């Protein structure tokens, strides 16, 4: 190798403070990326991450739920109503519109009631609700020294969730946390919900939550961008590490349909193998029939109910892909009775349920 710029590929830039270099008059300088620009770059990067298939990432997005042609009902579970009475705030997180829907949610739930305390902060994992591939976990964070927890957004500096069976860890999970609206901002307690989905079956496995340094956000603006990129984004409320493990053990009321239908998605031939539907989520397994990567970041699904209603609004969605097998899932913003679904539309194809 004779060219110096090629050789520099093997040079590690240490002790060179690029931020001290003065910008040219015709350029914006080093910190010239706007909030809008950052957001555009983030979205482009996440698309590439989702296409890559190395990891599963939840993407909060609206989507349109579709139709499809059902070929075989693979399995059909029977709902067992009101086996558990879940916390009303937790139930309201799913926006039930009737007692029937509340009962449907209760039938998916289980009580956990496990606690861990360190440095005056207790994590109380109370309840969980879910189906084959998605789970929601309600937990309280309680300050034991009666410190009032009144901020709108609490977090931990590190939030790790793992799911393990006796012999291995579940790969391909995506998760995020949402703080429930605090009904008493002058007490020492807040409630949060973990929303997680996986490409693998969750029931019968153990979940471990690991948190570090209970904090509030520091300088976030309305558009979600840190106003001071060089400063820490957290204000520490209580330092420490909290770890808690509990079984994922609730009734699986997921309806599973074997579809085996070929569809074309953005010029790529795919085969929808199975569709799994519960009152809170939908997931589908597809086979990639090409050797090329399929970008499913813009996938649109609409659910059409027997009463004619079209449901196109979801809480989040995610894609897990290993190249040949693609698992797409989405969590609903409202409770859906799977038995009342007429058909699903995926990429313009009608899947009759």
């Amino acid at each position, binding site marked *: 190798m004779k060219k110096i710029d090629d050789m520099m590929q093997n040079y590690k830039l240490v002790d*060179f403070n*690029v931020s001290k270099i003065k910008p040219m008059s015709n350029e914006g300088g080093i910190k010239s990326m706007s909030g809008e620009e950052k957001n555009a770059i*983030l979205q482009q990067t996440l698309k590439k991450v989702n296409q890559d298939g190395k990891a599963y990432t939840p993407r909060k997005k609206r989507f349109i739920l579709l139709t499809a042609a059902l070929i075989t009902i693979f399995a059909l579970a029977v709902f067992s109503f009101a086996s558990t009475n879940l916390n009303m705030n937790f139930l309201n997180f799913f926006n039930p519109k009737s007692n029937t829907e509340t009962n449907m949610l209760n039938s998916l739930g289980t009580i956990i009631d496990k606690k861990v305390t360190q440095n005056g902060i207790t994590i109380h994992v109370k309840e969980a609700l879910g189906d084959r591939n998605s789970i929601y976990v309600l937990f309280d964070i309680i300050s034991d020294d009666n410190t009032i927890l009144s901020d709108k957004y609490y977090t931990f500096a590190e939030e790790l969730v793992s799911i393990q069976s006796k012999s291995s860890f579940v790969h391909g999970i995506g998760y995020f946390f949402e703080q429930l609206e605090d009904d008493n901002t002058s007490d020492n307690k807040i409630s949060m919900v973990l929303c997680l989905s996986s490409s693998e079956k969750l029931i019968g496995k153990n979940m471990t939550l690991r948190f570090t340094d209970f904090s509030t956000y520091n300088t976030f603006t309305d558009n979600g961008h840190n106003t001071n990129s060089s400063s820490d984004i957290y204000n520490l409320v209580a330092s420490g590490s909290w770890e808690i493990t509990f079984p994922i053990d609730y009734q699986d009321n997921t309806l599973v349909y074997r579809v085996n239908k070929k569809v074309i998605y953005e010029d790529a031939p795919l085969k929808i193998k199975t569709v799994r539907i519960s009152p809170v989520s939908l997931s589908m397994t597809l086979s990639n029939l090409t050797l090329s990567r399929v970008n499913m970041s813009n996938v649109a699904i609409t659910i059409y109910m027997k009463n004619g209603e079209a449901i196109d609004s979801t809480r989040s969605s995610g894609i897990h892909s290993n190249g040949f097998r693609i698992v797409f899932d989405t969590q609903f913003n409202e409770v859906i009775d799977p038995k009342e679904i007429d058909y699903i539309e995926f990429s313009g194809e009608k899947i009759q349920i």
Partner: protein
Amino acid sequence: MTDKKIIKLLKTNPEKGLSNAIDLYGGIVKWVCSKILGTSCTQDLEECISDVFFKLWKNIDKFDLTCNVALSSYICGIARHTAIDYRRKQHPNIELIPLEENDLGIDLDFADELALKINSSILQEAIDSLQEPDRSIFILRYYFCYKVKEIALTLDITAKSVENKLYRGKDTLKKSLIERGIIL
């Protein structure tokens, strides 16, 4: 947010990790990419920047915090070679730096695995042992692909002085590499 926290987030929650990484390093990455690619094609520039952060996420397991290299330096390295790749695709027949200025006069072996390890270490030592501002000038020219005039403006010295220092710097580096036992 510390490098350690960003690395953990990239591994466990890519969306949050990437968001924080772009907040902290987006400006530097944009700057590096725009020095090499120019700013005329915003679409290519944005695509290149997002490729940099994708590669950061993809390769984060390979980044070793204990090797004493800051995450910002690692990201600058990714940004540099990603932008150079883009530029070579855009303009395959146009050299980024004129050949006569870019030739060190010795042919270093980076192909063999052992030679790569030894020569990378020697190259690092040799460049880092250059006196300031010669080292900064050398890095700005050959790492960030600054033009001579831009270096002069940046460091408040004349363009002629930059040219002289680059010429002498190349000579010193060549001698230093040979003295340190570079594999040819």
